[in-house]
């Protein structure tokens, strides 16, 4: 049986792990390669590096991280953050990453998904979606046409808007529609982050996760909000996610990847142990 995946995420700035904490037997808590190797040893199914380096002149540092990871870590790893075009994607893959995650560039130029997936294969193109909930009043069109306004049923249904530039800029694009379009264009996976939940440690946005996961036929990785192991379980069961991404619970040692997978396996999920 195909296992649900547990994916630790590392924020990397100028080639160093952001807020590296010294625990376990880390020689260098700030070294993303060593962190990734430890996650791999603990049983992580994949690792994601999110490059938050602001300046482009430091991009080579990230490529060095990618190359070193490919030499030492034998599980799939994804690199995201600031990828603008086909050339960026090619450079990262050439240096040994298995997948790239594209966000803003894909929204601004959806054809990038198509061209990149044609060139490198769908499996290495992850479209990252930052989604924020908005309350939307949806009215049934047929009833509107009948001018049956007085009796019209108005449902308050959740909807989510896509944000870009690290969550700074709203786009007006509906997250579900965007996920479907991304799939059509050739995305191999969706990395879905709930902006409402991100950083709260109060659990994933299950409705968002489920809505997207049920709208596409490619794997969906849930992200944003992991604080407890129950949250990961909920995202993978109720949320119908194929994988969960978490940063701080692993990073700060709240749980190891091993503990997490043991817990989820006990709850009845298929895990690679």
């Amino acid at each position, binding site marked *: *049986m*195909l*296992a*649900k*995946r547990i994916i630790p995420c590392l924020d990397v700035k100028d080639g160093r792990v952001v807020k590296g904490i010294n625990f376990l037997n880390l020689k260098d808590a700030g070294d993303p390669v060593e962190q990734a190797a430890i996650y*791999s040893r603990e049983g992580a*199914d994949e690792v994601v590096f999110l490059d938050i380096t602001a300046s482009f002149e430091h991009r080579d540092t990230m490529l060095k991280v990618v*190359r070193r990871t*490919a*030499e030492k870590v*034998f*599980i*799939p790893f994804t690199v995201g953050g600031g990828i603008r075009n086909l050339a960026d994607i090619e450079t990262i*893959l*050439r*240096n*040994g990453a*298995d997948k790239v995650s594209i966000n803003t560039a894909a929204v601004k130029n959806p054809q990038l998904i198509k061209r990149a997936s044609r060139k*490198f*294969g*769908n*499996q*290495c193109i992850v479209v990252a979606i930052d989604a924020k909930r908005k309350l939307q009043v949806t009215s049934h069109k047929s009833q509107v046409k009948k001018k049956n306004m007085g009796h019209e049923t108005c449902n308050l249904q959740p909807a989510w808007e896509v944000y870009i530039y690290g969550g700074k800029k709203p786009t007006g694009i509906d997250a579900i529609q965007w996920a479907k379009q991304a799939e059509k264009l050739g995305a*191999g*996976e969706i990395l879905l982050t709930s902006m409402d939940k991100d950083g709260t440690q109060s659990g994933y946005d299950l409705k968002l996760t489920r809505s997207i996961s049920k709208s596409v*036929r*490619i*794997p969906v990785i849930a992200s944003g909000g992991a604080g407890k192991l129950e949250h990961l379980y909920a995202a993978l069961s109720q949320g119908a996610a*194929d*994988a969960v991404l978490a940063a701080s619970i692993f990073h700060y040692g709240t749980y190891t990847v091993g503990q997490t997978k043991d817990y989820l396996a006990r709850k009845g999920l298929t895990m*690679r142990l």
Partner: protein
Amino acid sequence: MIALIDYKMGNLRSVAKALEAVGAEVTVTHEPAKLRRAQALVLPGVGAFSAGMSNLRKMKLITPIKEAIRAGKPFLGICLGAQLLFTESEEHGRHLGLGIIPGRVVKFRSALKIPHMGWNTITKVTSHKSQDISGLLNNIPDGAYFYFVHSYYVKPKKKDMVLALSEYGQKFAAVVGKDNTFGIQFHPEKSSELGLKILENFCRICGEIK
């Protein structure tokens, strides 16, 4: 020396590094002369079947590959490289492959998400003779997980060429073998310790490591 065939189908770095990690000496090449000198060949690759075949053709690699296999050199195809060993594929039309292993490459027709992506278990087919002889799956327990990414799977004509099965909506061949030629649908180079174990076993078969 193991030659890793560079036919411009994806990044070979991780396969090279994984083989080196288990102690092999690796040369990444598309030169027929170097392929002839190598003790064993590895054909990795991700991407479309037809593009893979057309690159092999353009780069004049088909003859050296077939010669090596005919000479009995250990040969390992990984993912697309495994599929290319077959007679034909139905990926975007009908395309002929290398024809080393009789059979077809067909698409998953399940209601499940495609590509089949992630970690899945394999079960060895124990009755198979060449498996016992080759030892490619030595020390790989049944139920071991490996990392898969594919939308098409291989269907050998002869059941006895299937060394291990996996299941995704249906059973399919995860590892195939015919004499000294092997095809692995998953990515051993991305499958952590057990993946490296298989590569190590292959290197033993090649005599690359003791």
